[in-house]
């Protein structure tokens, strides 16, 4: 079974402060990890995936297999980063399968 846990439902920081959204996963095989974001009144969209090792909008996430974590980080938060963030996992070895999401973290960046 696969499981994704986001321990913080709400996270509030001030503009310019560093932000870290936590994600832990449970999966016995080889996972693909993703972060999806939903801005106010917009549809859910991909922010980044670990396989790409990219930085999007200043956000990065590193897969730590030892700690089974995929935390999302940004050194200087901006007000436009306020949104709901979901961590998600997909099994790499199974061709075509579900993407399992965490419960989400609502990030608020205050001015």
């Amino acid at each position, binding site marked *: 079974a696969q499981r994704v846990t986001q321990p913080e439902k709400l996270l509030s920081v001030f503009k310019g402060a560093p932000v870290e959204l936590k994600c832990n996963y449970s999966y016995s095989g080889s996972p693909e990890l993703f972060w*999806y974001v939903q801005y106010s009144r917009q*549809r*859910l969209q991909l922010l980044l995936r670990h396989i790409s090792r990219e930085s999007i909008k200043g956000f990065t996430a590193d897969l730590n297999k030892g700690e089974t974590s995929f935390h999302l980080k940004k050194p200087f938060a901006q007000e436009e980063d306020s949104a709901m963030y979901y961590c998600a996992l997909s099994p*790499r070895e*199974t061709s075509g*399968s579900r993407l399992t999401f*965490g*419960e989400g973290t609502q990030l608020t960046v205050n001015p």
Partner: protein
Amino acid sequence: GAGVSQSPSNKVTEKGKDVELRCDPISGHTALYWYRQSLGQGLEFLIYFQGNSAPDKSGLPSDRFSAERTGGSVSTLTIQRTQQEDSAVYLCASRTGGNTGELFFGEGSRLTVL
């Protein structure tokens, strides 16, 4: 179309009635997913289609829920004898066949059961 399209965007129904929610995925996307989004519950997986078949329907919460996909394109999620706990936003998403591909979401169908 340009993106995943869902209809209706809003549906209010009375307890006990049946509802149908429609999803039109991005052309050429073979994989189609249904999720349910509730306050405090995150995104709950319901069912996954590859082409017209559903290899994983384990997330359907009860036998009142069913889904089908025809022509490898449009999918319909049907909820029979709706209950108040069925109230949620139902999201559809599609992607090309691999596990690493981006999931493209629709705007959702908000269902309210009175």
